[in-house]
C-alpha cells in the first residue's frame, strides 16, 4: 500500500501491547502407567505463564525482531496479536482494533505467516490459492494483478506458479506462502519463523525479500526467529523475551553496550608462544597456532592489548566486540549479565 504510507516525521502507532498476560492451564501427569491411570480420574492443573506482563509499542513501518529461546512467549505474543489467543489480562491493539474480535476490517489489514504451517492447497498449483485469497480478502482485479506481478518478480517464482504445491521444494513453497499472505497488501505482517528449515541460500533470499518488502511498502513487520542471522540482518529494533517477560527492547547495537562486559582480542603470532603465559592477558578461549582468541574485561581492553603487544611476538591484532549470538545466549542463561 504505497499510497497509504505517511511522512516519516509523523510516525503512527500501529501496535500497542500493555501489560499482556497469557496463562495456560496444563495438566500434570505423573510418570509411568500408574500415573496415566491416575490422570484419567484426577487431573492436576498448573498455570504456565507463557506471557507474563509484556508491554511494547510499534510504529508504522518498523521491522521488529522477537527473539528468545523456545517457549519464551514469542509465538504466544504473535498469536495474541493475530487474534488467535484470548489474553488472560492486559490490553492489545492492532491498528486500533481488538484483534480477539476477529473483525474482517482488521483481518483484511494484516497477515500471519507461520514457517511450519501452510495455507496453500497441497494438490493444486499455488496460483489457485492466490485466486482464493484474492476472493477471501475481496481484492479488486486490478490491484490483484499489480500486486501479484510485483511479488512474483521480487521472489522470482514465475516458473513455479503452475506446479502443484506438493511438488515444490520447501523454499519454493515458503515463497508461495508469502505471496498468498501478501496479496491483500497487509499493513501489518506477522512472520513466525519464516526461515525455519531453509538452507542458507534460501534464508538469505527470504531475508532480502522481507527487507525489500518492508522498505518498498512501508509495512509494519514483526518477525520471530531462532536464527540470529535473520534478526541481525533485518531488524534495527529487537525485543528479547525470556520466560514470558521482556528482558530487552531497543536497538540491536545497544545490546552489546548493555550486556557485553568483555571484548575479544584476536591475535596472530609471529612464532609460537606459551599458552600459559597468555593467561596473564585474559581468558584464552581458543589457541591454535598461530592464532589465539582472548577474552578481556571491556574497560581494560586497550591496556590489555598494549600489554600483549609489548610482551609477545604479535603479527596482527584485532579488538572485537563479542558476537551478538553469544551475548544473547549469556543473557538467557543468566550469567555474565552486566
Amino acid at each position: 500500500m504505497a499510497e497509504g504510507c505517511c511522512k516519516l516525521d509523523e510516525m503512527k502507532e500501529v501496535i500497542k501491547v500493555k501489560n499482556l498476560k497469557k496463562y495456560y492451564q496444563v495438566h500434570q501427569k505423573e510418570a509411568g502407567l500408574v500415573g496415566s491411570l491416575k490422570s484419567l480420574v484426577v487431573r492436576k492443573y498448573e498455570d504456565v505463564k507463557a506471557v507474563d506482563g509484556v508491554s511494547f509499542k510499534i510504529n508504522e513501518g518498523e521491522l521488529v525482531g522477537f527473539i528468545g529461546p523456545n517457549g519464551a512467549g514469542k509465538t504466544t505474543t504473535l498469536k495474541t496479536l493475530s487474534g488467535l489467543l484470548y489474553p488472560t489480562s492486559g490490553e492489545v491493539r492492532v491498528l486500533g482494533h481488538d484483534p480477539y474480535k476477529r473483525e474482517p476490517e482488521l483481518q483484511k489489514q494484516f497477515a500471519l505467516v507461520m514457517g511450519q504451517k501452510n495455507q496453500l492447497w497441497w494438490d493444486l498449483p499455488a496460483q489457485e490459492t492466490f485466486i482464493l485469497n484474492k476472493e477471501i480478502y475481496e481484492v479488486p482485479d486490478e490491484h490483484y494483478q499489480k500486486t501479484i506481478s510485483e511479488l512474483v518478480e521480487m521472489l522470482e517464482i514465475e516458473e513455479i506458479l503452475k506446479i502443484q504445491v506438493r511438488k515444490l521444494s520447501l523454499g519454493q513453497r515458503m515463497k508461495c506462502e508469502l505471496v498468498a499472505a501478501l496479496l491483500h497488501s497487509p499493513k501489518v505482517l506477522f512472520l513466525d519463523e519464516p526461515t525455519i528449515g531453509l538452507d542458507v541460500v534460501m534464508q538469505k533470499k527470504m531475508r532480502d525479500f522481507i527487507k525489500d518488502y518492508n522498505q518498498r511498502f512501508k509495512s509494519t513487520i514483526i518477525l520471530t526467529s531462532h536464527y540470529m542471522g535473520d534478526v541481525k540482518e533485518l531488524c534495527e529494533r529487537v525485543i528479547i523475551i525470556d520466560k514470558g517477560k521482556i528482558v530487552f527492547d531497543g536497538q540491536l547495537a545497544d545490546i552489546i553496550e548493555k550486556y557485553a562486559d568483555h571484548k575479544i582480542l584476536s591475535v596472530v603470532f609471529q612464532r609460537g608462544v606459551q599458552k600459559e603465559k597468555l593467561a596473564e592477558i585474559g581468558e584464552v578461549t581458543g589457541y591454535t597456532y598461530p592464532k589465539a582468541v582472548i577474552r578481556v574485561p571491556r574497560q581494560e581492553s586497550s591496556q590489555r592489548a598494549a600489554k600483549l603487544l609489548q610482551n609477545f611476538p604479535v603479527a596482527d591484532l584485532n579488538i572485537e566486540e563479542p558476537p551478538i549470538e553469544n551475548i544473547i545466549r549469556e543473557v538467557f542463561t543468566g550469567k555474565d549479565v552486566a
Partner: protein
Amino acid sequence: MLRKYRTVFKLSWQNVLQYRLNFLMGRVRNIILLLTLYFLWTTVFVGPAKLFGFTQEQIVAYVLIGNLFYSLIFVHSDNDIANAIASGGLSLFLVRPINYLFYWFVRRVASRLMHLLMTVLETGIFILLVRPDLQFPTAPNLLLALVSVVLATALFTFLDFSAGTLAFWTLRAYGPRFALRMLMDFTSGRMFPLSILPQTLFTVLNVLPFSFLIFFPLNLYQGRLDSLSVLCGFGLQITWIGLSFLLMRELWQQGLRRYEAVGG
C-alpha cells in the same frame, strides 16, 4: 461475499480431478459393494417370494437407490476438520475473513455433485449388468424423497462436523469419530432395511437421528409410509437437524474458546 465460496467450490472440483486414480478406485470399491449387496439379497430370496415385507425387486431397488442416496449424503469432512484442529492449521483460517465450517460445507457440496455424476454412471453400469426390475416411484414420492435427501444432507453435515470438532478436546477425535461412523453406516439403513431388525430395536432406531439419513428418504421413495408417518418423519427429521445444528454450534464455540486458551 459469495464469490469467495464460489471460488472454494471451483477449487474443490479441481482438487478432486487432480487425483483421478484415487477417485476412480473409490468408485470401483463402490461398485463392488453394490454387487455384493445385490448378490447377498438375491441369494436370500431364492426360497420365499417375500421377505421382511419386501419382494426381491423391492429390495434390489432399495439397495440401488440407497447407494445413490449414500453417495450424495455421506461425504465426510470430520477428518479434515479434526486434522486442522490438531495440527494448528486451523489458525491460518481463523486469521482470514472466512467462515471455516461454511468453507467445508461448500467444499463438500462440490464433492457431492461430483459423486452424483459418478453414481449415476455406476448405477447405469449396474443396471446394464444385472438388468434388475426397477421400481419407479410416483412423482409425489420422488419429490418427497428428494426434499428428505436434502434435509438428510444437512443432518449428516452437522453430525459429521460435530464429530470433527471434538478434536478440540481429544486427539484428532479418533474414538468418537470412528464410533459415529460405525453408527451411521449400520443404523442409517444403508446396508439393509431397518425394518428387518427385531421390533424393539427397530422402534428405537426409528427415533434416532441416523435412520433419517437413508432409511426415511428411501421409504418415501418407495412409498412405504402413510401420510401420518410421512408427517411425523419430516417432523422428527427437522427436529434432529435443529438439535444437531445446535450441538455443532455449541461444540465449535466451546472448542474455539479452548483453542484460544491453550493455543494450537
